[in-house]
């Protein structure tokens, strides 16, 4: 019995799970305080996966299922890229690829007062943070960090924006830095903003460079680290030949 206690959680970690898999059994765990992340739910004494993905675990007690999907479900604390869809007296309505449009209060900017309300046209791309995400309510965004500073949040001017899966955007944000960005960064200088909602914004010296970088990122989704490096190397060689 003692073996099962130590053995049962470990055997699922970093393994693919599908909905209905019993990941953990609380009844035979000594320490029953665990933190559940996305994709898991408690059913009596067992923790069951409800999404297909890879089970992750960090010490001491956090479990979650890492998934990749085309649709984003807002979650508090996520940094996302949103597109202004409408502006009202008190709020901007922002599309963050969620089920509903998100509200961005006009005062949620650094030093925001009634006097200096920012003006965004419909279609403006913003880098924002999700501050409220309750079921049944429109999510709320903010353009400041927790201490009220602008901290890189705000409008993204120029550049190019494309959609990807949430899995790819998480891969790009992963630390240590993902191989494709590292390799590209050695040869090409570019700016990038990655939203957890599966939107990526890019800016580089010339439009052709932007296209190269964006294609490299989009192609890297299904490749392993080594293959990503090879792909980027080839791309850069081609780039040098053509220029």
């Amino acid at each position, binding site marked *: 019995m003692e073996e099962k206690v130590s053995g049962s959680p470990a055997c699922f970690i970093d393994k*693919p799970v599908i*909905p209905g898999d*019993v990941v953990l059994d609380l009844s035979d765990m000594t320490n029953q305080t665990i933190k559940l992340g996305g994709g898991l739910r408690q*059913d009596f004494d067992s923790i*069951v996966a409800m*999404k297909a993905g890879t089970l992750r675990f960090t010490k001491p007690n956090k479990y979650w299922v890492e998934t990749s999907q085309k649709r984003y479900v807002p979650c508090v604390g996520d940094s996302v890229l949103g597109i202004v869809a409408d502006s009202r007296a008190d709020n901007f309505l922002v599309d963050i690829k969620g089920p*509903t449009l998100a509200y961005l209060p006009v005062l949620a900017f650094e030093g925001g007062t009634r006097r200096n309300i920012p003006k965004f046209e419909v279609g403006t791309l913003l880098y924002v943070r999700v501050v409220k995400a309750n*079921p049944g309510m429109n999510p709320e965004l903010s353009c400041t960090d927790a201490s009220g500073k602008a901290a890189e949040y705000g409008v993204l001017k120029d550049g190019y924006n494309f959609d990807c899966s949430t899995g790819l955007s998480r891969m790009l944000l992963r630390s240590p830095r993902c191989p494709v960005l590292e390799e590209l960064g050695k040869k090409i200088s570019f700016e990038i903003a990655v939203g957890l909602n599966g939107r990526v914004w890019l800016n580089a010296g010339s439009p052709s460079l932007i296209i190269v970088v964006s294609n490299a990122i989009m192609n890297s989704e299904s490749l392993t680290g080594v293959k990503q490096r090879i792909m980027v190397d080839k791309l850069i060689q081609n780039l040098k030949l053509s220029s």
Partner: protein
Amino acid sequence: MEIDRVDGRTPNQLRPLACSRSVLNRAHGSASWTQGDTKVLAAVYGPKAGTKKNENPEKACIEVIWKPKTGQSGKLEREYEMILKRTLQSICVLTLNPNTTTSVIVQVVNDDGALLPCAINAACAALVDAGAPLKHLAVAICCCLAESGYVILDPSKLEEQKMKAFAYLVFPNSLTLLQEGGSPVGGEPMEHGIITSVTQGAMSVDDYLHCLERGRAATAKMSAFLQKSLQPLLSDG
């Protein structure tokens, strides 16, 4: 078991299965499911804001649209839509995204018997692909009762027409629980559950129970297949 099947299968033998995920570019999740010559394509869009009229806004709503291979959708398609909707409602966690609608669109590519079970399997795979929260997976199978009292599984269109009665049965994916969970969940083992049962024609209680038993045995193979076909996309994530 001296029943002859047109394609030379044994009564318990299923037609070859095939499943591919993420076949459509624009849908949030999609899957195609093939059983022999029956092929169904399912696409999932959503969750979208708001629920339809007469639906509980405190829960997520599932909308099913059945597209027949040719022609307009009639009474039969409406019935299939309803069965599929009820089945999917019971496997989804509806309380997580209240006041949203998830659309499941089922396109029949080719019908060669056992159409509804095939569609249920396709829809289930598409929901997994879309990342919808599910309690567990569902595997569907068609059991037929021949005039002579034999039960055959996964009939083709030709066989379906000759049969006295048939039952569409949907089970939770028992395999994962059998292998990995082991312990019964909530007092009764999950693999004894049944999600949906649709019967047509007259059959005795004993025959029905026989169908259940055979169907359940066969779904173990199918859930193994479903599990396997859901894996490869995940590992590279």
